[in-house]
């Protein structure tokens, strides 16, 4: 089948973030801002109006002093595959094909010049990974000098989001072509947040490539499995400490998280009453 054929040759770029190592320092956020020409305003304290492709959430276990425990969760765009590859919550709803899913890389793209700002994709994304340019981006005089030529600055009225630093893939491909190589090396394509993270908490690479570190940590299941609710789960991690955010919804994200703490892993999804993460696939395990 065609699907199998493309899957065979395709890459699925993804990320695993070690929440034990993440210290919530915010370097990933700033690395992303400066890599991707993210605009800023004089007041960025209204976090619902603050463009942060990569956003670090602070969560706690809800207990009082001194039993409070804290974990930081960096959240880039999750690059969902959806129920069948490419059926991401946002890609499927964009009326103008401004956001797309690439079978070659598994990356969800956003074309700012195509987007006309209906914001349906933002409503569709449960991760709040999409941001709208409520204002025309303005850099204080002189500061536009640091803008990177590799990422196109956006205009007012369009949606933007993390692209897994796709321009770095483009540059890596250029480099590969120049060296008469076919493939992009793991080290040649790393996102800005991965590169900057002082704790080394982020691992990025091709989830389909067993040679890549991200594959080795995540150990994604090659087969699509169905959970209790009949939702297809693509690339389910076989590492017990690895989880994805809102996996139950079937978004099939390509950003994985690693934590040794159970309450953190449980915070990745919603559970009713006494459900446990491991119950989700109870029936499959019996087979």
């Amino acid at each position, binding site marked *: 089948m065609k699907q199998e054929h493309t899957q065979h040759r395709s890459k699925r770029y993804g990320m695993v973030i070690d929440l034990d190592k993440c210290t919530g320092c*915010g370097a990933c956020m700033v690395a992303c801002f400066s890599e991707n020409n993210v605009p800023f305003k004089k007041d960025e*304290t209204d976090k619902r109006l603050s463009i942060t492709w990569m956003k670090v959430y602070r969560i706690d276990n809800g207990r009082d002093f001194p039993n409070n425990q*804290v974990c930081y969760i960096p959240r880039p765009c999750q690059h969902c595959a959806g129920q069948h590859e490419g059926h991401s919550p946002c890609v499927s709803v964009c009326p103008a094909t401004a956001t797309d899913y690439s079978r070659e890389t598994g990356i969800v793209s956003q074309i700012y010049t195509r987007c006309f700002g209906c914001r349906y994709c933002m409503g569709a994304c449960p991760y709040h990974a999409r941001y709208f340019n409520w204002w025309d981006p303005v850099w*204080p005089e002189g500061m536009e000098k640091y803008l990177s*030529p590799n990422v196109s600055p956006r205009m007012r009225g369009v949606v933007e989001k993390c692209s897994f630093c796709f321009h770095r893939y483009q540059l890596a491909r250029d480099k590969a072509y120049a060296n008469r190589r076919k493939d992009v090396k793991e080290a040649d394509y790393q996102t800005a947040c991965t*590169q900057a993270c002082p704790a080394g908490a982020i691992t990025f690479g091709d989830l389909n490539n067993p040679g890549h570190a991200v594959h080795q940590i995540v150990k994604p299941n090659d087969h699509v499995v169905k959970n209790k609710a009949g939702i297809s789960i693509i690339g389910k991690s076989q590492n017990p400490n690895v989880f994805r955010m809102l996996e139950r919804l079937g978004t099939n994200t390509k950003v994985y998280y690693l934590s040794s703490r159970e309450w953190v892993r449980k915070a990745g999804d919603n559970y009713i009453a006494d459900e446990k993460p491991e119950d989700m696939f109870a029936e499959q395990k019996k087979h």
Partner: protein
Amino acid sequence: MKLSRRCFLSFVVGGAAGTALSPLPWKLTDDLSIWSQNWSWTPVPPDGEYTQVNSTCTLCPGGCGIGIRKAGKRAVKIEGLAGHPVNDGGVCLLGLSGLQLLYGPARVKTPLKRTGKRGGGQWQAISWKQAIKEVTEKLKELRKKNQPQSLASIGPNGSGTVSALISRFMKAYGSSNDMKMASKLDSDEQALFLTQGIQNGMVGADVENADFILSFGCAVLDGYGSPVRMFRANSRWKENSATLIQIEPRQSNTAAKADQWLPINPGGEADLALAMANIIIKENLYNSSFVSDNCDGLNSFVQMLYENYMPEDAARRIGIDVQTIIDLAHRFATAARPLAINGYGKGQNPSNLKETLAIHALNALVGNIGKKGGITGLSAYDYIRWPKVVTDTVAAAGLKESRLDGAGTNAFPHAKSLPNRFFDKLSAGNTSIQALLVAEANPCYSMPDTAKIKRVFDSIPFIVSFSSFMDETAMMADLILPNHTFLERYEDVPVKAGLTAPIVGLCRPAVEPQWDTLDLGDALIRIAQSIGGSVGAAFPWKNYKTCLKQTLADQWKDLEKKGYWMPSQSLQADADSKNKAGGKSGRYVLMDGTLETIYMAQDAPLEGDSRSYSMLLMPYDTIRITSLQIGAPPFVMKTVPDTVLKGQDGFIEINKKEATEMGFKQGQAVIVTTPIGEARVRVHLSSGLAPGVIAMPRGLGHTAYDDYLAGKGVNINQLIGPVEDPASGLDTALGIRAKLAKA
């Protein structure tokens, strides 16, 4: 009538049909669509050849290697330098936003001369020639009056050539009032001298190789030491299942990520460390071979502990139960490679000497001195070997006058510089300072009791700032001689931030100077040369770069190539032996007369009485807000959570339960009052703070810089006054008593 209307209509219809058949509407639509996709006012970054300049970041004492990525002539991104011994590719958010400082609106773009009232922000742009002339004239005048000692300087707490040039200038000029901003390095240095006899020492902590880390309030994950290195160490601890225990009243990032968070009463670090020492010795858990071979004064140390630091008493004072202390002592002493580190927060403020000594003693008891995974007293390898300054008579006379801050006197024999005492003196009415040079420091913002500091500044007749940015201190200056930013200049960066081996990084220009600025070194050289005489003679270099090259001599090539230089072991040993005071070589003093006085002394009380001020206000450090002389750039401010800053309002953290009892709701406006001042803030109810403690971040409440920073939140230094550590003379305030009331 009818005819013409019909004809007209028919004409219009024909026109419409013709238009539709012509490319006009279609091409116009397409072009308008392209126009609407590419608004002319959306910047289009010009492309160019991609190159990278490797340099060293000087925005904090961490000394990370950075690579500045360029497109054509523009710097477009700062990245961590892979393979660099300090940070190996990682980089913090401040370093990443460095370009916003370079190209930012807060830059002082040309020499400025004050025209209006001081602090009024009215300036006249002047040429460098005139700027140098004005400084020179003033300084010459003071020397003419035989008052060279009335010139003071405030410089960075560093040990590179820039800091040395300032000191050299002061010496040649004839003033001993050469102030350096104080930090944890000062208290470390004093402790090293007292325990190991090391002069000019710095504490290296082999954090990477420790497996049980007891952090006494250090913001390990919020900018302590060399921040990126600490992050990396933390990751290594996680990989190796090492244990990190964080001791502090507030659940900081470090506490949040630690394996155990031990909230104790503020200021209880020394008590806890000494109580642990007590237990370790009593239960014979200490490393007896190391102690007997290397340590002096064990018996008197033990006696002192038994008299003053019994676990029960300490437990009461620090607010945890005895069993916790005992457990902690056991775990520490029995760990394979335990390590205790100290320095509250980022270590930007000095620590109490007693606390420092206590924690060093704890390390000594487990034989953790100069060992893998332990702490090492290093003496900075001093590569600056300039010819001695020859002073003229004016200078010689001036130098005979004692320092205003009393550093080096009998009261504080080991202190080098005590800026807090300097300002106290001036504030108390001393008018001996007629001129002040400020470089790479922002005392009007970062020293406690800013109102007082500003009053002092107001009273000094002539102030020159060398700041690259329009910061609070530059605002108070009469003349600003703007320095290049770190991306436009050369500088040697000796890293002292807790590394186990000394490293000297090279900061070098990534781009052409963006504005009419001048390297601080060059400015000093020019000023000295234009003063002439012996002052000029002390600065024989053509420019700063020549000076730097000559100073680093053999190492220059290496530095240029690699971007950093690690002095070889033999050089280090050489430095070590030179700096060791006679007789103490290789020994560790647990107790002697001086130490006893320190250990037995009462802690300096916090300002304010507990009756009218029921709570304790503590500043806290977070890596999301820069708090040293550099103001946070917009990107950094963008990461500040809305529980710390909302709009222009800063937040104060308070224990959730306590706040509820007091009737405060999340986000409510309150007035926080301390003996020093008051401020309007909003409350953030936290589950991570001990009751009775309230906390505010350092780094907010700037009044200068740009609209992206100024006026946001409250500068905690407005609320906190200095608390002088009687042992060191340093300001070691870790908080102040305070009260909260509804606004």
